[in-house]
């Protein structure tokens, strides 16, 4: 196991004007489970493939352990990669698949056998060792792919959306299995996914990438509570955070933030006022998560708004309510027992801690 460090890693494909990966720096500690997350095409897979050595580095450095590996072939980097398609060798048995890397490295036969048996036991694959991939279910294939990585005992595990080909139920199950595996092996893992739920549930830390740029790195809690910018705020959490453009007004020497129609207003505390003041903006984007909107009027500082109910999605314990407030659309999560009908006008509020304010142009969080 070793740490992995990216220093200003940049990738530009030939014939492409833009950068697929733009100066990404990231420290992955020894034994850490880190998720690279972002929308498809954001560059997260490119970053992973560069770490694996499958893509060349345009500029910057990749360090695994204490070695700069920029110019090393994949086989010399001591990493294992679990592919999205599993990439099992179709003509080999499960045993053949798991032992191939060791055979190539001329590991003695009995050692290979021990390593494969061990991995097969951990992954519950013992009775399938003689089967070909075509005779396995999707979940089993996925475990073989993991097993192929485990037997190599690499410095770092790289995983490229390993769960995306599984059905929803199996995905949840395997998610837990991978997390358990991580604890058991104590291995450094870099895991790429577009699914923020996967990232939130598994990772020690999450690196959010968008358009080739690293937006924020932090623990799931940090990202949820203190998103660095509007993109991260919108990407993490489901349903997505509500964003409303607001206007900053001066009153009585202080300031107030209101929406265009006046259906929403925020009663700022001193810290928030100071921040807006410092940013020197006359407009801000207000962000509030659906789960933080309460069906009651404001008491004290915070947001208050009135909105009419458009759609109600019943989900059992609670309901997702789609609302319109003036020209803005919002989603709120309310207790399913709340008696609501379409067309009702509600008064909702959110506490001061639940409110996010973003710079209208740069999207950077103001608080």
């Amino acid at each position, binding site marked *: 196991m070793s740490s992995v460090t990216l220093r200003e890693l940049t990738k530009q494909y030939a014939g492409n004007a833009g950068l697929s990966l733009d100066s990404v720096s990231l420290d992955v500690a020894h034994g850490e489970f880190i998720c690279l997350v972002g929308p498809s095409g954001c560059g997260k897979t490119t970053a992973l493939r560069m770490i694996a050595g499958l893509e060349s580095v345009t500029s910057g450095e990749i360090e695994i352990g204490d070695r700069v590996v920029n110019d090393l072939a*994949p086989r010399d980097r001591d*990493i294992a990669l679990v*592919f999205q398609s599993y990439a099992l060798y179709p003509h080999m048995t499960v045993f053949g698949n798991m032992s*191939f890397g060791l055979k*190539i490295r001329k590991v003695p036969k009995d050692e290979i056998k021990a390593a494969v048996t061990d991995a097969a036991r951990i992954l519950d694959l013992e009775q399938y060792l003689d089967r070909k991939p075509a005779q396995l279910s999707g979940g089993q294939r996925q475990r073989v792919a993991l097993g192929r990585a485990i037997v190599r005992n690499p410095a770092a595990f790289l995983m490229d959306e390993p769960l995306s080909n599984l059905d929803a139920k199996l995905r949840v199950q395997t998610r837990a299995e991978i997390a358990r595996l991580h604890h058991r092996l104590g291995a450094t893992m870099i895991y790429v996914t577009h699914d923020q739920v996967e990232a939130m549930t598994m990772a020690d830390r999450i690196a959010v990438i968008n358009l080739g740029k690293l937006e924020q790195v932090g623990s799931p809690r940090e990202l949820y509570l203190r998103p660095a910018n509007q993109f991260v705020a919108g990407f993490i959490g489901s349903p997505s955070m509500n964003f409303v453009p607001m206007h900053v007004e001066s009153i009585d020497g202080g300031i107030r933030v209101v929406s265009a129609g006046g259906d929403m207003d925020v009663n700022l505390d001193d810290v928030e006022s100071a921040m807006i003041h410092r940013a020197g903006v006359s407009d801000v984007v207000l962000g509030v998560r659906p789960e933080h909107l309460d069906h009651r009027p404001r008491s004290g500082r915070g947001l208050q708004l009135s909105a009419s109910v458009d759609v109600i999605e019943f989900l059992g314990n609670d309901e997702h309510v789609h609302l319109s407030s003036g020209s803005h659309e919002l989603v709120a999560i309310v207790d399913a027992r709340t008696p609501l009908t379409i067309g009702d006008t509600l008064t909702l509020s959110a506490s001061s801690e639940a409110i996010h304010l973003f710079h209208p142009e740069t999207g950077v969080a103001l608080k």
Partner: protein
Amino acid sequence: MTSITTEEPNVTSPKASRGRGWWRRNWVSLAFLAPGIIWLLAIVVYPTIATIRFSFFDESATKFVGLHNYASVFSTDEILTAFKNNIIWVLVFPFFVTFIGLMVAVLTERIRWATAFKAIIVMPIVFSTTASALVWRTIFDLDPHIGVVNAIEQTVSDWFSAPGAYPLNSSTGETVASLATFNAKGGPGGTLVSSSAVQPGGTVMMGLTRISSVTLQTLGAKTPVAPHEMAAGIAGLVWNDFSTSQPSNTTSIVSDEHGLPNLRLSLVSSKGSSVASTVTDASGDFSFSHVAPGSYHVQILASNFQIAFVGTFWLGSPSLTPVSSLNQTAQSLLSVPLIDLAMIISYIWIWAGFAMVLIGAGLAALNREVLEAAEIDGANEWQTLRRVTIPMLAPVLTVVFVTMVINVLKVFDIILNMAPGSSQGPATTLALTIYNDGFTGGIHSGLASAVAVILFLLVVPAMLWNLKKIKG
């Protein structure tokens, strides 16, 4: 068609209403199928059955002869040769064409000009085998002024042993000794030696003949001049002792004769050792000065007559296997005629593109991630190719291989067009035998039919394999 006929009685059967309904629903569909089925029955299915029937009848197709034709097949040298050649084709061609197709398809993925390269390799498929065979016939031509292969061989061979100024004509079996006419006789190791001995102060004249006028012209030969005696030296002349005006004069110089320039000579002492050497001038004269007293002979070196390059008769039937000591039948069964090799090379040129396209498509359809997984697992390119790529391509490789086996079982055009008349017999194949026996000269339709049936039986395994592939 079978469905149409089996359902027909239904129209008048007790279940007439159901039959009529069936017809009403399906007659358009069956009408769509009818032209194709009728065509196939008339020109493919019926004739195939008829051929099987013919193969049991005599030449007039009236008298049943049982297996007689099949017995003849295996006792006719021509057909046994055809079998042998088909076996050579099947053993050699499919393997090489698949192998080359694979190598080229794999390597093509690494170059920037892949599109152009593929077009170049595929192009020969669209040429008729007739045209291709003719091209390759010139390429393998014996004459190095026509055939590239022999031209290259000549260039290489000339590096190692250049032909002399007066190469013997190998085609007429000419020998060095036969060139001597006056005061010359065959010496050791393909040399010519003056018949008379000579002492210093004396002269030597040697007459040769049968030197081609083209050679003389090229060398700029002049009228010979009789040698002058020189003190303590030996002077002499070598000339082409043949005059068109006085053909019978073989003892003296005539004005329309020519000296032989550029001949390499050496002076041989009575003990047989060479003491001096020289080269004749444009009029054929030479001299050795400062010769010690004694008796000498003048020797014309063998290198002057070094045979010019003899091409490889690629289109001929010399065998690549040592069979000359065997009897006629064994020879025809075991010899591998050179032209088979030439034709197989040409046929590879035609079909490698086909293999490349198929294998290339197979490669493109492979899951790239599997190959990357092998890379991550530590396999180098060769290991990846051998242990991952090729096993994954196995189905495609089999298709290519089987297709090529069927193809060469039927190989015909290239032999008819590439083999010159003298090689047609040794190079013949089953398909060519069917054509020759069935349609040219004395027609043996029974024998030809038997061979056709055998050819058909040989492709049946491939047919079943095909069906299995499509059904499964």
